[in-house]
């Protein structure tokens, strides 16, 4: 022990820039490696039986059903503001007729999945990180292993499965609510004929618009659950550690959602 300390002190005295760079780099590589292994294990348990139907169902209700109000409100007002904004914008070059089309395409392609993803990341990602993190620091995860139950199978896989399946459904519902919001504003405030507005909504909408949004949603659902589980699983140091894990889960999921959103869009629509 004494020898180790002595060596540490010497390293601090000679301010060694390279040592700091090296340490940061090693910590980064360690993180990347740990995250890759976690993801690999999580996915392999996600697709391999046995499954825990009760746990999957509970997570589906938690993610799908209880997020409906949040996602519904978010997309409703987004649809409304989209109609309003695009109308004032397009009026400048007499293209008000495009409002319905703009509302539906922006919602299904972009705003539906991204806004729902960010809201669910705050709601569900935080909850997952906090719950699994608390289980970690109170040794409940160790207890699972001693009871011949794989924590990946029992804790991580059900959350990932629920995330991947529920987010697209949420987004689909959100899309519809958002379009309805645009319709309400369009017909009551902007003076569109209801039948014309609906016809305009359907006219230029393509299957790919909706499908690409739903694929995004599935990816975002995976990312949210993965970040929640990963940061919770590796949290340490009591209440403070769980708090940090929760923050990291939400922040990393949100950033990843925005980055992946661009990449998937490029994949689908870049010519």
């Amino acid at each position, binding site marked *: 022990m004494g020898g*180790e300390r002595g060596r540490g002190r010497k390293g601090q005295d000679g301010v060694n820039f390279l040592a700091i760079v090296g340490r940061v780099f090693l910590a980064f590589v360690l993180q990347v490696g740990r995250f890759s292994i976690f993801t690999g294990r999580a996915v392999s348990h996600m697709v391999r039986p046995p499954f825990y139907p009760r746990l999957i169902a509970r997570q589906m209700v938690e993610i799908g059903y209880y997020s409906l109000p949040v996602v519904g409100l978010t997309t409703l007002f987004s649809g409304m503001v989209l109609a309003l904004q695009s109308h004032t914008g397009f009026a400048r070059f007499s293209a008000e007729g495009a409002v319905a089309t703009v509302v539906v395409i922006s919602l299904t392609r972009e705003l539906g999945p991204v806004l729902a993803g960010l809201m669910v990341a705050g709601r569900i990602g935080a909850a997952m990180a906090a719950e699994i993190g608390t289980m970690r620091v109170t*040794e*409940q995860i160790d*207890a699972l292993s*001693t*009871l011949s139950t794989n924590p990946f199978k029992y804790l991580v896989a059900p959350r990932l499965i629920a995330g991947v399946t529920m987010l697209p459904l949420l987004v689909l519902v959100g899309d519809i609510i958002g379009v309805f919001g645009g319709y309400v504003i369009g017909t009551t405030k902007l003076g569109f004929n209801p039948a014309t507005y609906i016809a305009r909504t359907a006219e230029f909408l393509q299957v790919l618009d909706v499908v690409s949004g739903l694929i995004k949603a599935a990816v975002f659902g995976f990312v949210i659950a993965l970040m929640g589980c990963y940061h919770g699983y590796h949290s340490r140091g009591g209440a403070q550690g769980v708090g940090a894990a929760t923050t990291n889960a939400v922040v990393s999921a949100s950033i990843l959602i925005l980055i992946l959103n661009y990449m998937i869009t490029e994949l689908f629509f870049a010519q």
Partner: protein
Amino acid sequence: MNGPNASDPDAPKLRLRDVRKRFGANVVLDGIGLDIAAGESMVVIGGSGTGKSVLLKCVLGLLRPDSGSIEVDGAETVGLTGRARDRVNAHIGMLFQGAALFDSLPVWENVAFGLIQGRQTSRFAARARAMDCLDQVGLRRRVADLYPAELSGGMQKRVGLARAIAAQPDIVFFDEPTTGLDPIMADVINDLIVATTKELGATALSITHDMASATKIGDRIAMLYKGRLIWVGAAKEVFDSGNAHVDQFVHGRADGPITEEAEAQAG
């Protein structure tokens, strides 16, 4: 070393050889060797932060030792993962320091967890077995449908004990079983530990710094200090071991070689 002989009846239930574990520069286990015979109760004592928990976690496979060998029933367990590890752990029950009950599940499902998840016992049969275990640790049956958060610390420990013995393991680990309990409740838990392990005929490995608990539940006691077992002997001999470090620890003195060495290191 190669060719583990699982059929050897004289092999100790648990055999540790030269187990080493370090975290960065911090050497926690520095060559641990220990044999525990079947049916024996071994207690490892030592100060806080001396690596007692790390030792247990290595045996359970929650941590992987850097080197050394850990044999259960004569078969090497270091490096086992997945199903093979589950098969070994199915023989082991563990009472965690903070009980580590699953707070999303009612008490009976906690107790029956290893049966339902690990062994695919039907929920009905598992509940019956859980009730028996709750009886065994002296809890009323109406506790079964409460959640862990509704129980006192002593009751949580009892539930943890019931969970540890539910699958009828032949090895049971106790991690600081009396920490956080008042002296009377601590003694109740000690009595329960002795009674339940005897009834199972199980081998027990406990870690504690509570000497009353150590002498009560242990047949033999080993003292962990600076990553090594500095003394191993019969439980009744621990108070006149002739080892100055052990003497200081078991009598709880502030002055002695342990504090002197710690001060020398700090200064």
